[in-house]
């Protein structure tokens, strides 16, 4: 019991202080019939560190780790190279094992970091303010829809068909219970959804939700949508699942988005089989009191020194209870730290270099893969992810590629299982971790599979 410091002598002495004869006396309020008499039967007993480590090593070896194979998966989670210093720093006990900074005098480390993070996110997204993080991109997206409803006092959200289908699923789940209306359409590889969106905006619309770049990797100007939305008193919510893209392309804020949310996993966090990730949430300053989640603000201490505190907590559940802007409590602090450290290491120059390298590799890959007979490139524009149309069902191809030790993208069939028109689509992400050899290996494997 290596994590339990009490010795049996301690326990006896403490029971004596308490005035209890035995540990059982401390559990007398548990109804007799519900008391467990000993360890729950059928479960293993305690294990040594070595035994536990062995078990997990065996489990880990059953998975095909991205680093060891040509790797082209994206669709909302991207493999980037994270500098070693990021993981080193987030493991500092003072960051790792601290709680939410409720006592700011002894939590300035976390608070200042959050203030820096908020500023980085706001600038990246082209917004005035950002919060201290959400669970992930998909929940941030739903929270933004909810916030738009509070701001506009309307309940119809117009959702682009280019929004990640899982984000749509989350919104559908929530809307079912809140009674919000979602205006949805089927994804079309042949054309973007902009025309429909412009049409759908009306005086009932609380918001338009557009992913940028969209689920197929396409990049489109959001200005017209923003203008139309604003004309009708609606908000434009932009969703960014690949923040690295904003090192190369305009920010949604520049194009008029009112709320920009995103998935921050690309920077600092890593793939982790889907979580924990970090939701990014930024908006115009005038909406700040309708934001969900924690906010860190600058202030001064009793001696006039600059310091930071959690602020505007009258929006939050621990103060407002059922009237809160969200029920969120724990956010994704440590992932926000990882994001912020990685972003600090990159800086403007590094982010732009990284984005340029991603785009260039993606262009190389797209050109190479489109040469394969029967394969066509769907995208006119893209950043580091694009869609191929294959001559056959792409889901089968993905499995066959995996058998050849190539992790060759995400099939649209996996993302849109019901939709026949999309079954031959393959979503391919190409980041800086992809080498030219990886592209060639992928191309050859794909050609073989299609042959």
């Amino acid at each position, binding site marked *: *019991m290596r994590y*339990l410091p*009490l010795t049996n002598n301690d326990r006896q002495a403490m029971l004596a202080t*308490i005035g209890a004869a035995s*540990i059982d006396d401390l*559990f*007398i309020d*548990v109804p007799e019939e519900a*008391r467990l008499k000993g*360890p*729950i039967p059928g*479960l293993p007993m305690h294990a040594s*560190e070595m035994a536990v480590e062995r078990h997990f090593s065996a489990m880990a*070896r*059953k998975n095909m*780790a*991205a*680093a060891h194979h040509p790797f082209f*998966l994206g669709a909302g*989670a991207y493999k980037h190279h994270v500098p070693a210093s990021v993981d080193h*720093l987030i493991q500092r*006990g003072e*960051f*790792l094992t*601290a709680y*939410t900074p409720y006592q700011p005098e*002894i*939590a*300035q*480390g*976390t608070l200042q970091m959050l*203030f820096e993070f908020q500023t980085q996110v706001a600038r990246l997204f082209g917004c*005035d303010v950002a919060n201290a993080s959400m*669970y992930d991109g998909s929940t941030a997206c739903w929270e933004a829809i909810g916030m738009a409803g509070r701001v506009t006092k309307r309940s119809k959200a117009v959702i682009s068909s280019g929004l990640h289908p899982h984000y749509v699923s989350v919104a*559908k*789940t929530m809307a079912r219970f809140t009674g919000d209306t979602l205006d949805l359409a089927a994804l079309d590889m042949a054309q973007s959804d902009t025309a429909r969106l412009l049409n759908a905006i009306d005086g009932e619309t609380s918001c338009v939700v557009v992913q940028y770049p969209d689920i197929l990797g396409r990049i489109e100007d959001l200005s017209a949508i923003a203008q139309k939305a604003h004309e009708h008193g609606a908000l434009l919510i932009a969703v960014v699942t690949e923040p690295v893209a904003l090192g*190369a392309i305009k920010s949604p804020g520049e194009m008029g988005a009112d709320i920009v949310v995103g998935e921050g996993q690309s920077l600092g966090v*890593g793939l982790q*089989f*889907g*979580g*924990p990730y970090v939701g990014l949430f930024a908006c115009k300053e005038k909406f700040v009191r309708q934001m969900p989640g924690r906010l860190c*603000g600058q202030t001064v*201490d009793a001696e006039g020194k600059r310091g930071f*505190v959690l602020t505007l*907590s009258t929006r939050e559940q621990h103060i407002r209870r*059922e009237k809160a802007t969200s*029920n969120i409590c*724990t956010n*994704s602090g440590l992932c926000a730290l990882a994001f912020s450290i990685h972003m*600090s*290491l*990159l*800086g403007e120059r*590094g982010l732009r270099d*990284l984005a340029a*390298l991603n*785009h*260039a590799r993606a262009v190389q890959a797209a050109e190479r893969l489109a040469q394969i007979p029967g394969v066509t490139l769907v995208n006119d*524009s893209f950043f580091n992810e694009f869609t191929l149309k294959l001559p056959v069902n792409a889901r089968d191809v993905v499995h066959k590629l995996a058998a050849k030790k190539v992790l060759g993208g995400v099939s649209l069939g996996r993302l849109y299982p019901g939709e026949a028109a999309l079954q031959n689509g393959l979503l391919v992400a190409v980041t800086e971790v992809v080498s030219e050899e990886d592209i060639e290996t992928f191309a050859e494997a794909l050609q073989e599979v299609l042959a």
Partner: protein
Amino acid sequence: LEEALIFEIGDSHTTGVDFDPAPKVQSRLGGLERNREIGLPGLSEPETVRHYTRLSRQNYAIDLGLFPLGSCTMKHNPRLNEKVARMKGFIDVHPLQPQETVQGALQVINELAHWLIDLTGMHGVAMSPKAGAHGELCGILAIKAALDARGEDRPVILVPESAHGTNPATAAFAGFSVENIPATPEGRVDVAALKARLGPDVAGVMITNPNTCGLFERDLKVISDAVHAAGGYVYCDGANFNAIVGRVRPGDLGVDAMHINLHKTFSTPHGGGGPGSGPVVLSEALAPYGPIPFVAKLPDGSFKLVEEEDATAMQPETFGRMTAFHGQMGMFTRALSYIMSHGADGLRQVAEDAVLNANYVLRSLEGTLEAPFGASGPCMHEALFTDNGLAEGFSTLDVAKGLIDEGYHPMTVYFPLVVHGAMLVEPTETESKAALDQFIGALRSVANRAKQGDPSLKSAPHHAPRRRLDETLAARKPMLVWKEADLSVAAE
């Protein structure tokens, strides 16, 4: 101790990351090339390491000392968990990889799911909720979905007044109206009042057990039976499962849904505010409505992630997806590592030591501070005190800030709301007796100063990186992002 902001240290030309030069290609960015500076400062690696190392030293943490935040369960975070979570086979796999390439990861999720079911005596578990409050939402949505399936409209959720704020916030989010249930003078739910309020408009109750006064709700089974009899469901806030794991199964008390904070009971690190992970165990009645995706073990021994397309066959009544992927894998590995390390015997010991430590604190200090429910029997994982007896003008906040000067993080203050000036102390099982004795001595000393009216306490802390911070100013004139000094002057 002062550390500048990255915006004051770095500039847009510096970077701490080198890249191979990008190959020359024709840009395909759709004419949306960025042409405005973002305004992101870069730091070299030495500056980065130093900045964050220095910042970290302005934090208090469980690694530095006892962190007695009641209701927050700040226990030791084993380093084995960190090692295990970082194995390449877990940290470097994509959520949408073909399932045959992630069988080990799926097996870990499945193993943890089974532990959670067995430890709680429940029927099923939803693994995807991202944190405790997200788990509450999961449980409440399952209740709503179950009611919908029954074709019943029950708009009310009952919540005891001592509940965590997330409880009413969650219920409200799901469209319920929230009604409070009072507490008895001994600090437990008023069963008579609750029973009286039950009826066809009541969807269920959200009850915390052990509750936020640190007491075991000894009538939970009676309550559950009454709620069930009235056609409702029982949601249990499992934030305090730490205190009872291995000693009681919530399933045996009639609970229908309960979230488990992996970052509390099962030792995954809090990280200065997350990430958490809030799996929800479900009764037989609610399990069919639980969210997708989830991991199923197939007859051939392989593991399958059940998503939208298989839901019709395998979970037809699911209320849907709560988050993009399958939950907090990085927390699952850590929690399972902790659970396996302790085993069934060790987890029982965890609850015993947590409760022992809390009672030791309670009994050692009840002569110094008022313990409002000291006569209500043993406490569970935490000991509750009030500000009754402090000198005129001295408050719980002063005691808290005074503790900082003694080298401790303060206890939870002003929560729960059912007593005046609450001080809620949760030592957890990973503190030694010596550490408790030291803490008890420190709190006693500060409390006595507050009782005697020591004026220096009013301006505490004196020995922290900052003196008391002006929270009113922060809220009145919110400064949420950094601005260049001259720009911000121009803006005024």
